[in-house]
């Protein structure tokens, strides 16, 4: 008799936790899921499309809006669906949270860690779509910030997917941090015997005469003596960071010409083991 009453009590609890199958409106849930998926799909397609074709100044804003829109839509959908399936009370919340904790702790620890890091990444924004970032040895433009991972497109057109939980353990280098441009550096090693003042001025002109130069940022040429020669760096900003590689190429090509015109010559490190005999 006592066993029967315990079973009834447990069944009543289960009834309280989840609605009965007859109560759950599956059509409504399906519509919410489909609508959310559709809106997320639209945001992921339309916003980057507008970002590439619209004004340059709006590009980063539009790209950055994609993960925020997706997170917002997911939260709305979850908040909408949960009450349709569960009886949301404090006690039920504790039951669900406890069960979820056990499942997550054993089975999905890394996945959930990435999901939480993904939410942190969307809120704190250490990187956002359109930024140029370095994860370990990979440098590229952030093309997608998902909930679990971030995808970057390298200059060689490879897409590298990095889980967000890298945030917890590694440094992340962000080249522009949401700004419209980033610093580009063209480097030269020059044999020490030369007029460094004249060459520094010439290399400054190399940057100042580039068609890609941003007029709102400084141009600096710095040099240091190294065992291999005088190391010059032209630090300048293009007006559009997507031009960074052509900008560096332009400065490098014309920088070589400037070095030659100043009567200096570049040096290179000898190959290991020396030239073939």
């Amino acid at each position: 008799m006592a066993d029967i009453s315990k079973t009834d009590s447990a069944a009543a609890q289960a009834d309280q936790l989840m609605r009965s199958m007859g109560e759950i409106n599956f059509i409504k849930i399906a519509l919410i899921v489909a609508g959310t998926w559709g809106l997320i799909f639209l945001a992921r397609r339309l916003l980057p499309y507008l970002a590439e074709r619209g004004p340059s100044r709006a590009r980063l804003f539009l790209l950055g809006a994609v993960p925020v829109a997706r997170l917002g839509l997911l939260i709305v959908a979850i908040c909408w669906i949960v009450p349709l399936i569960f009886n949301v009370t404090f006690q039920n919340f504790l039951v669900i949270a406890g069960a979820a904790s056990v499942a997550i702790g054993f089975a999905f620890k890394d996945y959930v860690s990435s999901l939480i890091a993904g939410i942190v990444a969307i809120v704190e924004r250490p990187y956002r779509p359109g930024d140029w970032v370095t994860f370990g040895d990979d440098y590229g433009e952030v093309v997608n910030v998902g909930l679990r991972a971030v995808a970057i497109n390298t200059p060689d057109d490879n897409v590298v997917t990095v889980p967000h939980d890298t945030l917890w353990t590694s440094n992340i280098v962000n080249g522009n941090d949401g700004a419209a441009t980033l610093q580009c550096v063209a480097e030269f090693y020059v044999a020490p015997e030369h007029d460094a003042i004249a060459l520094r001025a010439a290399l400054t002109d190399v940057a100042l005469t580039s068609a890609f130069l941003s007029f709102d940022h400084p141009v600096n040429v710095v040099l240091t003596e190294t065992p291999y020669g005088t190391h010059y760096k032209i630090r300048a900003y293009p007006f559009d960071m997507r031009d960074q590689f052509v900008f560096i190429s332009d400065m490098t090509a014309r920088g070589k010409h400037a070095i030659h015109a100043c009567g200096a010559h570049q040096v290179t490190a000898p190959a290991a083991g020396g030239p073939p005999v």
Partner: protein
Amino acid sequence: MTSTSARANNNPVKVPDALAAFIPLSDYETPPTPTKDAMTRVLTRAREILRRKPDTPMITDDRLRRSTLERLDEIASPPACGPLVAELAASLADWLGEPPPEGGRRLIVMPPGDRNQVMAAWAKQQGHEILEPPARRDVIGANAYDLPVIEDGRAPLVIAALEDWFVRDLHGLALVRALLSRIDGLKRPVIVACNSWAWQYLVRAVQADAYLPAPQIFQPFDALRLRRWLSEIAEYDGPGSVRFRDAQSGDDIMNAGQDDTPHEVLQSLAARSRGIPWVAWRLWRRSLRRQVEVDNDDSAEADAPHTPIEPAANEPAGDSERSRADQTLWVIALEEFLLPDTDHALTLLLLQALLIHGQLPLDLLTRTVPEPGATRLLPALRTAGIVEQRDNGDLVCAPAAYPSVRSGLTAAGFPIASV
């Protein structure tokens, strides 16, 4: 009778009432765009963004026939920029008054497309010495030793186009640096004119603003000024008076409305041209039609009254005189230049180089644009009327296309000149 209408370097400029004094460049405000026009442009831009390929990659002007152009030369003749020369003279008259200021400097900035060379015209009119630049190709590699001899003294010296003294090249800046340094050491008054894009670049590249005072510019040609000016240049020697009528509404555009409010077409023209007279004039010319042709594709034109001004071959002499007396030109909606979608970035690099240099021969243009093969786009740009070739072979950005080119460069994030 005089009025004080502008301040530059804290000195009041007194000019006759009929003339508008030059103002500091920082005070230049583009005439506002009428709401209807703004909405149309937003919709056009949205359509441009959303469509994959442009409907018409280039603007065509086939409706403006040669005979019409000849007629337009009579009625809307090329602008002598008379008001600007007079306004410049009036603005500088006090400053250059006897005795000329020792070591004084004036910088006048002009928007691109100043074919009439307002500063040079003014200097010739006043008999001032103009410092002629070397040939553009000789600027490459030139330095202080290549500067022309500049005598010091009391008489004003005019540099009519500072943009002619440099090329955006590794070896193209030394001459303009030497020139600015030389000017700095002169006791005689110096008046410098510079294209606004070149000035913006020179400020960045050679710190030109350290040598010259804050730039001044003419007051923007708003709808009121345009109405006055376009009416003046339409007063030609032929018989009868010219009427400009809106092809959509039939309104007489030059008629003052209530409270002397200019017609919306003129407001639109002022905004589109950014208050630049030579741009406005060219856009104005593009929008004039001799007669409204019944065209299935253009219902607005088809709806407008049909008023041919060319007498028919079998028309009696009396009718011919009557129609000539009633000279009516129809003003159609202004069309936007559309930049080609192909190699858009490269096109913009070419156009930016042309705007910064004012005009360039092909070989120097190639030198200033880093991407190889950029010049292959030039034939398409010339066909579209966006780039023009001058008699000496130099390439220039067409003044009428300037607003569209500027919009394209702005949208792409290029550094943009003030005007």
